[in-house]
């Protein structure tokens, strides 16, 4: 006796959260059944393995049919075939677009092309596809606020939408994230930086009426950053800046002597990063540069995080007291974001 056909269709579509998770995680039906058996469900419900197999198959089939709709979430809301309560619809979408941090960290900044997709096969094909479709559509079709867009068109929660915005932003600017030096950074770190950059460094950040979206860095701003070079090029200005910072921090910093010794190097590093951002290649290397020029020197001197914070605050604030420096606003826009990023990036 073999079962040829075995289906269950409810007027309200039944969604089993556990099975959905297994499906999203890419388990085969056999593996999913094995995992469910291990979870002790048979003992709890008194069901047999055959029942579990049939149930799992059925859910997988449903999810498979739903997947087409999940690629365009608004369709899920308007379709008539599956009657699903709104709370369940939200859950389906949210979970579908949720991603594994480790995985996203891996693909971050890589160009999402066919080649990449093949590489990803062994990580998680499913997430790769959703990511791709998400990025493609956001990039090609939408204007306006990135986060809002993703939220509207994919009906995702705020948190998830922000993460996606970060991914899209990274992918679009093709930031280098794969270098060995950067391996210690998590997706969360990058997402945090991306959000700060989207808020402060993009066109949308300056002018909300901009037709373009906040995907691209503000070119004008990047050009202007060259002006900051004067801070390290002008010897007097550099000395004055150093003395201002040192005066303010004397006695407050555990690593004061190291700071004093390194000040010029650090400052040069930070300002040069800014000045170079006009070139696409250097934009790509932003994170590498930041780590090389700032994070690593500090870390080798064993700066505690609190000292880094004190230093960066003072470092950016004291520029306001430099009389000969005219680009205060530009400096704030640059350092405000950079300070946030550096603090986030500064860990082991």
């Amino acid at each position: 006796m073999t079962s040829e056909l075995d289906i269950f269709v409810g007027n309200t579509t039944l969604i089993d959260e556990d099975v959905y998770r297994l499906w999203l995680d890419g388990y085969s039906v056999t593996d999913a059944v094995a995992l469910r058996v291990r979870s002790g469900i048979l003992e709890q419900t008194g069901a047999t393995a055959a029942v579990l197999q049939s149930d799992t198959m059925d859910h997988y089939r449903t999810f498979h049919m739903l997947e087409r709709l999940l690629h365009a979430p608004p369709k899920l809301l308007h379709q008539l075939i599956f009657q699903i309560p709104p709370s369940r619809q939200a859950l389906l979408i949210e979970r579908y677009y949720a991603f594994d941090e480790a995985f996203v960290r891996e693909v971050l900044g890589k160009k999402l092309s066919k080649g990449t997709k093949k590489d990803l096969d062994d990580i998680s094909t499913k997430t790769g596809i959703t990511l791709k479709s998400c990025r493609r559509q956001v990039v090609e079709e939408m204007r306006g606020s990135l986060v809002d867009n993703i939220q509207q068109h994919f009906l995702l929660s705020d948190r998830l939408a922000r993460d996606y915005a970060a991914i899209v932003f990274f992918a679009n600017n093709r930031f280098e994230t794969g270098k060995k030096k950067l391996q210690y950074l998590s997706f969360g770190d990058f997402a945090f930086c991306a959000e700060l950059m989207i808020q402060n460094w993009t066109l949308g950040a300056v002018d909300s009426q901009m037709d373009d979206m906040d995907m691209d860095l503000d070119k004008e701003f990047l050009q202007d950053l060259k002006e900051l070079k004067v801070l390290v090029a002008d010897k007097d200005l550099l000395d004055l800046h150093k003395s201002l910072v040192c005066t303010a921090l004397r006695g407050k910093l555990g690593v004061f002597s190291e700071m004093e010794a390194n000040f010029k190097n650090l400052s040069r590093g930070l300002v040069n990063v800014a000045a170079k951002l006009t070139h696409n290649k250097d934009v790509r290397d932003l994170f590498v540069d930041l780590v090389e020029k700032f994070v690593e020197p500090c870390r080798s001197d064993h700066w505690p995080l609190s000292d880094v914070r004190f230093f960066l605050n003072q470092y950016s604030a004291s520029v306001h007291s430099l009389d000969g420096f005219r680009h205060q606003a530009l400096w704030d826009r640059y350092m405000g974001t950079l300070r946030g990023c550096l603090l986030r990036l500064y860990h082991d």
Partner: protein
Amino acid sequence: MPGKLKVKIVAGRHLPVMDRASDLTDAFVEVKFGNTTFKTDVYLKSLNPQWNSEWFKFEVDDEDLQDEPLQITVLDHDTYSANDAIGKVYIDIDPLLYSEAATVISGWFPIYDTIHGIRGEINVVVKVDLFNDLNRFRQSSCGVKFFCTTSIPKCYRAVIIHGFVEELVVNEDPEYQWIDRIRTPRASNEARQRLISLMSGELQRKIGLKVLEMRGNAVVGYLQCFDLEGESGLVVRAIGTACTLDKLSSPAAFLPACNSPSKEMKESPLVHPPSHGCRSTHNSPIHTATGSRLTQNFSVSVPTLIYTGMGSGSAGKEGGPFKALLRQQTQSALEQREFPFFTLTAFPPGFLVHVGGVVSARSVKLLDRIHNPDEPETRDAWWAEIRQEIKSHAKALGCHAVVGYSESTSICEEVCILSASGTAAVLNPRFLQDGTVEGCLEQRLEENLPTRCGFCHIPYDELNMPFPAHLTYCYNCRKQKVPDVLFTTIDLPTDATVIGKGCLIQARLCRLKKKAQAEANATAISNLLPFMEYEVHTQLMNKLKLKGMNALFGLRIQITVGENMLMGLASATGVYLAALPTPGGIQIAGKTPNDGSYEQHISHMQKKINDTIAKNKELYEINPPEISEEIIGSPIPEPRQRSRLLRSQSESSDEVTELDLSHGKKDAFVLEIDDTDAMEDVHSLLTDVPPPSGFYSCNTEIMPGINNWTSEIQMFTSVRVIRLSSLNLTNQALNKNFNDLCENLLKSLYFKLRSMIPCCLCHVNFTVSLPEDELIQVTVTAVAITFDKNQALQTTKTPVEKSLQRASTDNEELLQFPLELCSDSLPSHPFPPAKATSVDYSSFADRCSSWIELIKLKAQTIRRGSIKTTMTVEKASPVGDGNFRNRSAPPCANSTVGVVKMTPLSFIPGAKITKYLGIINMFFIRETTSLREEGGVSGFLHAFIAEVFAMVRAHVAALGGNAVVSYIMKQCVFMENPNKNQAQCLINVSGDAVVFVRESDLEVVSSQQPTTNCQSSCTEGEVTT
């Protein structure tokens, strides 16, 4: 009466890409009604076209309005080649033809293609202007309302229940026409869909005409089926109960009427006086040449069994003459009708007086012998024959009417089994006679039948019983005789007293049959049928006893014929009726009692059975009060006497003539294990696993013993097909496979719905078909309803009150009568010791063997009679069930698509139906030539059923409704050809589109207007205050 049909095409959305180059579609729409077609403009390059068309107007006869569906076709415009069809929408405009239903159909309809399934949606608005016409000779029957619901619809009151209407139309099946060889599958499917839609319209119109002739205005319990006969044609047939219904509009105005006893009479449903109620239900006269035609066509009428034991009562001294009078009156009113049948399964209080038992008839026919296949005459005659048989069975049971009546067919190649079954009944003379007699009768009735146990009392004469039976005095009133077991096809009467909870009981059976042709085949089938009936009955009886229960409701026996086997599946809901005696146990006896190890084995089995019975009694909370007092005159049996169920034919044939009651006084009946077959039977008894805790199941509307439904419902359809290994199939292996299939299916359902616990699967409807040699297909549709466990526990403490409460749950009304009122009328019933009953199986066996003889001679019929039921004539006071407290808020808060509930029940728990919008009757075909790509057979059928649900919901929503009640999937014919990567499926569904309002929303209203709650009880005709 001409009318004007107006259609507007508004917009489309989610259309498929038809032009690969642009990834877009240039869509336009054709609107067709009858022979007139209109077109919209082409909306270029869009998947979401906005046509916003003018109103297309069709001026048509109302005859056409009833017959024709509105056909909307969405196409992709192509300049150089033929336009490609995207898909179609058929809209049945019937709901617009009666005044109280929908006034406009407006909404998004899925665009359906028989090859691709749903492809986007289209927004359509449809209106009808009808001009009044007083032409007497009209052919249309606009205005007659149709309901699938098998009880009086909730917001109506039955003024008169006229009786049976039926009709049948035949046409050539497009799939079998010569042209089918050259046209595409799509064209063929669409031709079929359209034809069935047309035939359904015609059928409904014709039935409507009959109703108008009877001066009714509605058909309740409308059941339409189609038979795919193949070469000989396509039959669409329908049965129903004609009624005159009154809309309950203002409950306040109605209340005083409820209080007045004189008016009560008139409000109570009357069986229509003979003067206009007695017309023939046949359009064409029945052929006189019955005999000769029968031999030509070859037909075998299958003997039917007498079910159960119970006799009748010259019940008490005063009962005799009274009964006679009652019968006389009933008879006079009903006998003038050709078929006094009612498709209803639930009745207004007082409508039923007696129920005589299950009557059924089957007949085997050969389709290729029909002389004039395109005409309905032959089939009409077939059905008339069967109905006649049913009628005579009922008569033999001392009943003049049949309630809970239904008909079905099973077709395999050229062999067709026609089946009909129902419950023989006697209707209350008070509703049959007007005026004069009423006064005096009423008094007597009230004296005689003041209790709830009335419907259990036997209706016929004890001294002249139609079959052997075992009687005791009613355990409730102790005045009248009751049978030991009761089988019926109706729902549990609302005022019946039940102890504990009910449960689903199924008998499953397979019998191999040799492949044969024509007459030989029909004879083989006819020879098998009585054995199957007998075994199905035995199984039911054993399982009932194993559950410790004594009555079955909603009994439905389906016999399915295949190439090389017959399948029997009987489903019913078992309950413990307080008025009936406690069922005896089951005794096992071995044939070789001297063998020690065998003995041990037997005693082991016996212990298992006893344990199971005890466990079941606990599980279903069956704990009738034990009273040692003996009932005077009751045949109290000696404890250990036994009847024997004889398996061997030779033994039983010795006793062929013994039909007396000498076997009547047994306690437990005995299963004698004399061969492996019997062993199997005992084993199979024990393999049925009870549902996991928190789950209950039944096949009736509501679960006896549960009354506190909460509002969460989940309707579902589940389909399974298994392939039997063709090697050495035996009956045993087959039975085991079939049994496992059903059990596993139930287990899967319980598992899937575990999040709803505590819950009950209601209206569980199994359908078996044998699509191919080695395939068995089982389709189940049911609804899971949650209930409140705490309140359930509370009520179990007082089983009697509980059952009373339960009784009115299907009113789903909040009639808050003080409970004492009902308790008052409860007699303090003495119960005898729990071991007093038996069924006389030996006589069954006797009859069975004698049948074989008779079948050889052909064409005799024996009644399968059975159980009797008497409806009390007391004033039933439906005690409101006010327990719908735990309802969850409707989850449709911000969805763009409105939620449409679907349920096979006639009500929605925790809600009140405010309007019936019309009948939904849809037929779809889906075919694929890329089965693998669509996920194999499971993927294909899963998607199709989901699409069918979606289309039903869309139609209901477009009518302005939010639910379908009395939903039923009447057919699900699935055929596959995996080698060719093809599959085809036909689905036919129906139900009533309704508007419901949550009771939580109603409460506000009813607090201002306290009489609102009276409504539904008034529907039932009587209210006691």
